């Protein structure tokens, strides 16, 4: 193929997609970096250097959102991972392959369902007259109806449970596919040697899926940083900022109050840095695990 023809083919095949990426991702990214150096309200933006970044580190709302992100990560990552390992392991032991595929399909449903739709369901579930309240009252654990979403810890728990429901299926599938790479003979041999199921899990299964577990925890961190719909619909970030996340704070700064696009952009740069770091760790872990 001549050089000229190759170039023309490259332009025809790659051109359109690259223009879309350029316009919808790269330019906004650069714009965002620039915007973060301007401050002011609505359209009256003025260059202010690194003022936004200085303001950011003394802004209690930002620090609070970061704290919430850390707290959500600390709770969500182990809970989702342990549940996923338990579920993936149980599915893997099923004998019938058609049952396996049905179960895998069902547990994947939450990850393809609109966050807006399930968030409204969970909001109703945790409300004063929701099923959670009624069940707890019937069981005698509570004596009166509580609006969980109006207490800081209740709202946090509601968001966490919603995310556990929405995310666990996806990670179960990820870990399930990693389990397929373990040689069945190894486990058979261990069983013949009289190893218990728990021992097989701890000594053979977990070590061989360690890379995927690490990968999952990085992916989960990325998801926690970006929690938006759940918070906006279930708790509006409240009460008293107990469930505020950076993503929702950016939205509020830009579209709910008198917009402060520059400051919001500076916060989005923080999200960018956090998510690039988690992605780089993910790539490093990926290289380690599959080479």
């Amino acid at each position, binding site marked *: 193929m001549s050089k000229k023809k*190759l170039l023309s*083919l*490259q332009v*025809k*095949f*790659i051109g*359109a*997609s690259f223009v*879309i*990426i350029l316009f*919808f991702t*790269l330019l*906004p*990214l650069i714009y*965002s970096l620039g*915007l973060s150096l301007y401050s002011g309200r609505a359209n009256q933006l003025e260059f202010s250097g690194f003022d936004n970044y200085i303001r950011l580190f003394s802004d209690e709302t930002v620090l609070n959102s970061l704290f919430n992100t850390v707290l959500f990560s600390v709770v969500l990552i182990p809970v989702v991972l342990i549940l996923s390992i*338990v579920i993936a392991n*149980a599915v893997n032991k*099923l004998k019938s392959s058609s049952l396996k*595929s049905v179960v895998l*399909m*069902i*547990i*994947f*449903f*939450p990850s*393809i*369902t*609109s966050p*807006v*739709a399930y968030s*409204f*369901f*969970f*909001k109703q*579930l945790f409300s004063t*007259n929701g*099923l959670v309240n009624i069940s707890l009252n019937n069981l005698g654990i509570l004596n009166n109806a509580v609006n969980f979403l109006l207490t800081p810890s209740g709202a946090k728990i509601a968001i966490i449970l919603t995310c556990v*429901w929405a995310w*666990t299926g996806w990670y179960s599938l990820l870990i399930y*596919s*990693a389990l397929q*790479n373990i040689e069945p003979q190894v486990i058979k041999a261990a069983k013949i040697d009289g190893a218990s199921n728990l021992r097989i899990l701890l000594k053979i299964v977990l070590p061989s899926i360690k890379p995927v577990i690490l990968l999952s925890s990085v992916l989960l961190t990325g998801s926690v*940083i*970006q929690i*938006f719909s759940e918070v906006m*619909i279930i708790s509006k970030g409240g009460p008293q900022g107990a469930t505020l996340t950076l993503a929702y704070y*950016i*939205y509020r700064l*830009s*579209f709910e109050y008198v917009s402060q*696009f520059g400051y*919001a952009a500076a916060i*989005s*740069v923080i999200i*960018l840095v956090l*998510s690039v770091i988690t*992605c*780089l760790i993910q790539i490093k872990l*990926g290289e380690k695990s599959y080479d």
Partner: protein
Amino acid sequence: MIKRLYSKILNLTIVAIACIASLLPYILILISSFNTSVDIKKGDLFTNASLKTFIANFNVVMSNSDFLVSMGNSILVSVVAVGVGLLFASLAGYAYIIYKSKRTEVLFYISFFCIMIPSTVTIIPLFMMIQKLNMLNSLITISLMSLSLPFLIYLFRQNTKLFPTELIKAARIDGLGEFQIFFKIYVPYMKSIFITSALILFIDSWNSFLIPLVVVLSKNKSTLALYLNNIGSANNSDYGVFMLAIFLSIMPVIILFIIAHKYFKLDTNSSAKL
């Protein structure tokens, strides 16, 4: 023997609980739609549930023009996203391997880097850009903004590596043009990747919330996610009708997934390798 039985029962219990927990919200949403708003707000989903109420709720939803318009818009946004996304991602993923050169490698790494950029980072500048270009309040804008092109290009590029180049050489000898080779040989060969990508594109655009929230200004351009948000945030909404609307908005994606899931392949093992 008994120990084995125990472990089998334990396993089945775990699987059963996982399935029930996954399905329970859908079931409860459906049961809620058999109730009147009063019963749902009382928290009583079972005593007064009736088919009559369900049909009444169904008629209310189906005669609600806002719901129907949003449903139509969501379908349009998703279909355009699938069409445009599939075409451009597959063309690029193919070319990054078949017409590989130093130039294209650089472009690919730039596009790969974009996978790491979350939409929360680009949404504000994008909003300002499309505002200046008068592209706000347009369904096409929502489609284009919902495309996860960098990831899909990566997915196609990875799978093109496994595509036998002899097929291309043979086709060139037979006198087929480059685009003919792509559409007549590559597309059928990569069927499952195309279906997987189509599902990803459809699900992403159907479920996207932040993008239409920022882009849409008028009711006639609302998508289902926005419609649900508007109804759910209002104080005087009929919850029976609302739950049915939620159920109807979830189902298209679930049904598509059930139909196409046997082709759905996300090769997680190659997910981090370039």
